[in-house]
């Protein structure tokens, strides 16, 4: 936090799930023979109508609408990495328009459940999941677009 603290290296908490670009994208899969999507790329369910062709790597839409949301008031168990003092994690399930799929993620920590609504537009950003002495471990987060945090949903 202090000005003299050395800059930590920003690394993804898990490799291969999202890009570190600005703006970031989730890395999904697209079935070459049907055009359906999945996330994560290698952990999606197959389309039974497909013949088992390739799953191509694609960048998923970085905007969508909140399908539902909640929080975790109590600290989740490991392998979640707790940063003390624990602040409730807000979670949103977001429907991506083009892909027609719902993707889970944390919500940017400036936002709480009181600020959110089903149907609200959000975009993908990166945020810190946890840190050690040398690294910041990042994950994807959903952040509302065109609204201010801390005022509660109207």
């Amino acid at each position: 936090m202090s000005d003299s603290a050395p800059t930590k290296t920003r690394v993804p908490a898990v490799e291969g799930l999202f890009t570190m670009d600005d703006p970031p994208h989730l890395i999904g899969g697209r079935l070459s023979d049907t055009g359906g999507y999945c996330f994560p790329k290698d952990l999606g369910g197959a389309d039974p109508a497909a013949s088992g062709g390739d799953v191509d790597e694609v960048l998923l839409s970085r905007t969508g609408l909140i399908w539902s949301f909640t929080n975790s008031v109590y600290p989740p168990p490991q392998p979640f990495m707790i940063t003390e003092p624990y602040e409730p994690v807000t979670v949103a399930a977001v429907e991506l328009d083009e892909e027609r799929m719902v993707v889970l993620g944390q919500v940017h920590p400036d936002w709480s459940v009181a600020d959110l609504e089903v149907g609200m537009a959000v975009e993908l950003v990166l945020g810190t999941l946890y840190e050690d002495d040398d690294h910041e471990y990042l994950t994807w987060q959903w952040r509302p677009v065109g609204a201010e945090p801390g005022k509660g949903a109207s």
Partner: protein
Amino acid sequence: MDEIAVLGVGMHPWGKWGRNFVDYGVHAAREAIADAGVDWRAVGFVSGAITVRCGYPGYVAGSTFARALGFTGAQVASSYAACASGATALSVARGQILSGACEVALVVGADTTPKGFLAPNEGRRPDDTDWLRFHLVGATNPVYFALHARRRMALHGATPDDFAAVKAKNSRHGVHNPNARFAKVFSVEDVANSPVVSDPLRLLEICATSDGGAAVVVASMDYARRLGVTDPVRVAGISLVTPTYPDTIIDLPYLATDSAAAAEPPDLGFKESIGARVYEEAGIGPDEVDLAEVYDLSSALELDWYEHLGLCEVGEAESLLRSGATSIGGRIPVNASGGLGAFGEAVPAQAIAQVCELTWQLSGRAGKRQVEGARVGVTVNQGLFGHGSSVLLRR
């Protein structure tokens, strides 16, 4: 589908007893065998529901229970399907009976659970979605329950009081069940005064984890007749369906749903398809059901099941609840046992416990929680990673 007979049922009371899971399973099995009026040595097949929390003896639960009851040379199998394990074990037993491989089978499951949230296996496992959801999102099971609760509020106007009323109802039922863990009536106010776990759900609305055991003895209809049992409770249908692609409803333990970009979602979503299959197999419709045991992992999820099971139209669950129809004495009592709200979940035993309750109800042995004149009952539940679980029982 041909039917099989339920000859006997038994349970070890749910609680936080801290003993070996084998004790609970053996207790339940002996009770079921005695209830059936058969000799243990006549049981030709032991179908164990696996616990993954109790080491190797839990992974081979069928033989563990068989040995603890005294090895007889019976055939054995062990099944795991998370919360659906018990229904899977029952289905395996039905297959053995209907194929003629055995005449009488014991189905048994038991668990000893740790305190707190259920969590994935240890070790860094980024190719396991169950690990990823905890590590990257902090998405515990209650997070998923709450996503569905919030969605229900947005879509159908459910209120936190509706959710609390489910818990209150089930506690009023469960107080009359000697096998339930929580022998206390909770009010809507009690729920509202308990802390929020995952908004909008509160601590009293989230299913606890419990120790417990449940068992049923099932047999061919012919064997039942030879025993002199002329009007047994019968298993008329079992549904173990998977979802149909694309499943576009987010559920644990996944980070994302399937995509509907290239294929339209099926007419019936996963949870609707579980009940649809069991009704089809039994040749019985939801309007003929007298009572249901549904998986209230959260109070709010019980409302979803009303609709998924066809007990009311989509969007009508709140009014069904508010009308009192799903309380004992109402048109279609749900969770007369007290449900998970009164039991807490003992994973491999739970789907079997649902069958135990319906058997007691359909044979008029449910005491103060008896649903008068019940002839047809249905259970429903769902195992992690896409295991449907539903059993239809009738007299």
